[in-house]
């Protein structure tokens, strides 16, 4: 077993952020099933560089994320790779809910009456967590929704897919550069649930090796080979300049 750096339960409704060092792994486990973990990712040293949904999808000719795919930044680099996934489909097109969506779906859920069971939403959670890093509204972009599958019909219509994430489903990210990860464990607005009850998600961070020459994420597309080359050149350049200063 590789060394565990952190193990933590992300409660339903909770937000979280942390800088992953290059080659650390972050595993998310949907303990009871039907979770939605909305995620944004940034270059830990320069958060102006951030996850880019469009570049991620275009480079890999895909509309969803699973093992072998990578999460591109808007600077042509690989922030994180998906190195393991028992769920099979993670959404990155349908965004997050906000306070208005939560009220429409679950009714009023204020802190005043519900205390810490109040209805938190991903939009507000992400803003809170981003604020801790000096970031804000301008830094919110199209996000990843781990454990969520939204089906797309021939006419482009969306439908939430039941049972995409069974109890115990897990996905593991490898940071391919130092990455700030911001998470919100809150219901997806297209999930038809009418009771506000987001399930807990287990987070585990471990150390691990760098992507090898035959890494499946690197080899899954020729585009990813170039993405890794650009990322590794950037990491080497950063490392050299740190030693030189």
């Amino acid at each position: 077993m590789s060394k565990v750096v952190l193990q933590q339960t992300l409660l339903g409704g909770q937000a979280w952020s942390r800088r992953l060092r290059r080659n650390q792994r972050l595993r998310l486990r949907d303990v009871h099933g039907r979770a939605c973990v909305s995620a944004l990712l940034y270059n830990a040293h320069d958060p102006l560089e951030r996850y880019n949904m469009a570049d991620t999808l275009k480079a890999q000719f895909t509309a969803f994320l699973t093992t072998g795919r990578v999460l591109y930044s808007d600077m042509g680099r690989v922030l994180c790779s998906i190195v393991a996934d028992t769920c099979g489909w993670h959404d990155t097109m349908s965004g997050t809910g906000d306070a208005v969506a939560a009220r429409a779906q679950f009714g009023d859920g204020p802190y005043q009456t519900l205390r810490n069971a109040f209805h938190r939403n991903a939009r507000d959670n992400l803003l809170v967590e981003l604020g801790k890093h000096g970031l804000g509204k301008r830094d919110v972009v199209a996000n990843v929704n781990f454990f969520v599958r939204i089906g797309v019909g021939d006419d482009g219509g969306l439908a939430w897919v039941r049972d995409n994430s069974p109890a115990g489903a897990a996905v593991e990210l490898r940071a391919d550069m130092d990455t700030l990860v911001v998470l919100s464990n809150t219901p997806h607005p297209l999930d038809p649930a009418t009771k506000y009850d987001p399930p807990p998600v287990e987070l585990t961070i471990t150390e691990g090796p760098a992507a090898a020459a035959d890494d499946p994420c690197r080899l899954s597309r020729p585009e990813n080979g170039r993405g890794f080359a650009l990322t590794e050149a950037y990491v080497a350049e950063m490392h050299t300049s740190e030693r030189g200063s």
Partner: protein
Amino acid sequence: MSFKHKPSELDPAAATVDVTLPAGQGWTHELAPGDVFRIVDLEGNQAVDTLFFNSRDLDERYSATETIRTQANIYLTTGTLLMSSEGRALLTIVADTCGRHDTLGGACSAESNQVRYALDKKHMHNCRDTFLLAMARHGRGMTKRDLPSNINFFMNVPVTPAGALTFDDGVSGPGRYVEMRAETDVLVLISNCPQLNNPCNAYNPTPVRLLVWSKARV
């Protein structure tokens, strides 16, 4: 696949703005509530990368995911509300003779061209450079931080039920247009796409015509 086409009643002769934007160039313009804005694909199959901002509060900007989620559909056409990051409609598409527009494909950049095509493509002109220059010239301090996922008018990026995503040949044609009404004070930011590496512009980037019917002056 056939698309619904809805033509407009507006007369280009009565437009208050009527400009032609060559491929590879950017454009910014402020719309007032009620203004109607039309983009004409003059020669066909030209991707027009577009962002909208609340011009009174630039932190509120077009959100691809809010737009997709609100209408529960990934394609844009007549009736689509172009939603902001604050969950408000910035504009409504009121006419469309193309029938389908993309908001998943984003904008090309020097860096993503390297990933997608070859490491030696970094010098090629791209939409993000156009956006950055147009924002710098606009003079309100906007930078790359102000570039979320955009709209690609006239671009066809179909998604299959199995989750494949491709850049397909366009579904537009010469003279097709899309028209939208501003629901608030809106800053328009456009890059007329210079991409030469994929079929989004049919490998031949061409000019578009931009028209505004200003409510105050009609």
